[in-house]
């Protein structure tokens, strides 16, 4: 019998701890142990992107690492993108552009795009398509997803321009 391990990590800004078998993937730990079911499990072998979370700020597939490896790490899931019950501007853009139908892929795309826009706040359409190429959506045909992301980036740029003008 293989012994379970205690791990401690920060999830969505909160210190969390839990016990897991070494073979438990990070996504199972988030869902089963921490009851954060916003992160979805699709293919469970690194193809679909539904389980994408941010690990120390970088987008990663939570089905392709083990929870024991996240000991001491900082994880952000879709639940951490906005305060409970609220949506951030990216999520509102997804709503406005009908960028989801069944919603299964949405948490993985939102986390992926959060990292994209942090690194590249003003992406071209081509860059957006590349960035989400590791996330499979079977409903939308991607068109509205791409539009929502571009619109969110444009809105953020406008806010920065306006604030910048006032600050002077």
């Amino acid at each position, binding site marked *: 019998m*293989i012994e379970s391990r205690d791990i401690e990590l920060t999830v969505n800004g909160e210190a969390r701890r839990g016990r897991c078998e070494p073979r438990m993937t990070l996504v199972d730990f988030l869902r089963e142990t921490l009851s954060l079911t916003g992160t979805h499990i699709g293919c469970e*072998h690194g193809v679909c992107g539904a389980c*994408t979370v941010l*690990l120390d700020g970088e987008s*990663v597939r939570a089905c392709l*690492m083990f929870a*024991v490896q996240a000991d001491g790490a900082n994880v952000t899931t879709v639940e951490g993108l906005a305060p409970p019950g609220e949506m951030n501007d990216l999520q509102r853009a997804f709503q406005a552009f009908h960028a989801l139908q069944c919603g299964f892929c949405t948490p993985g795309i939102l986390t992926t795009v959060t990292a994209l826009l942090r690194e590249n706040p003003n992406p071209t359409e081509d860059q957006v398509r*590349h960035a989400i190429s590791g996330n499979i959506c079977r409903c939308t045909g991607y068109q509205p997803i791409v539009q929502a992301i571009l619109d969110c980036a444009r809105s953020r740029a406008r806010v920065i321009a306006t604030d910048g003008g006032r600050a002077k």
Partner: protein
Amino acid sequence: MKPAAFDHVAPETLDQALALLVRHGDDAKILAGGQSLVPVLALRLASPSWLIDLNRIASLSGIRRLESGELAIGALTRQRMVERSDVVALANPLLAAAMPWIAHVQIRNRGTIGGSLAHADPAAELPAICVACDAILVAQSQRGRREIAAAEFFKGMFETVLAADELLVEIRFPGWPVGRAHGFLEVARRHGDFAICGIAATVDRNDGGSICDSRIVAFGVNDAPVRLAAAERALIGNRGTSDAILAAASAASTGLSPRSDHHASSEYRLELAQVLTRRALIQSMRQALHNKSN
């Protein structure tokens, strides 16, 4: 599916890792980025008793330019770090050009350069780049350290010359000669999928503008990356005219023996080897002309 039960050990030093490798032998698998290993475990194609997790060994990660002009990359360096590195962009533009073709950003954020090389997938980009650049792969075990030429490292499909007690620790790329041009292309069903066929090429010219050296390496066709020697020979001594490129391209399928599988037939892969060689050489020659005009 869920992986079968295993125990996990995460050494903090290379010495500890090498000792664990000796102790657990065939019962252990080495976990680097995990982007190929974890699917294998999830599908239960392998069920080791132990995972030796290298991710806590800080000394295995990093990118350095040596005084010799060589580029040294620690085996545990994330692919994304290589992709973003200004040092790599200057010291090996072919490697830099190939990085965005590897899978997807989420994979490259975890996947490591050494993991991909040791895994030796015939359709992977990094093995081909190492062969095209005459890279040196440094392996270490308790018995000592040895340097392996990339051309000797890959034995076949998912097979390398690494012994059971050896760990790949560093990859060294020779200096990049001034004026060297390169090309890189692949065809996959979707961006990020493994390549049906890909070509990495370098072209060196002498002061008179004649091609004096070239590497053309195909991946995704044979069981390991393969130099297209006949195509390389067709370029030497001429100036990279369109006739020379066409001659090299038509020689590109010489000696290749691709498999047919559900992605593509053998014939299609041979056709791609020729077409992509032509395109990669056109890329290279355009760049050579651009280098010259600067």
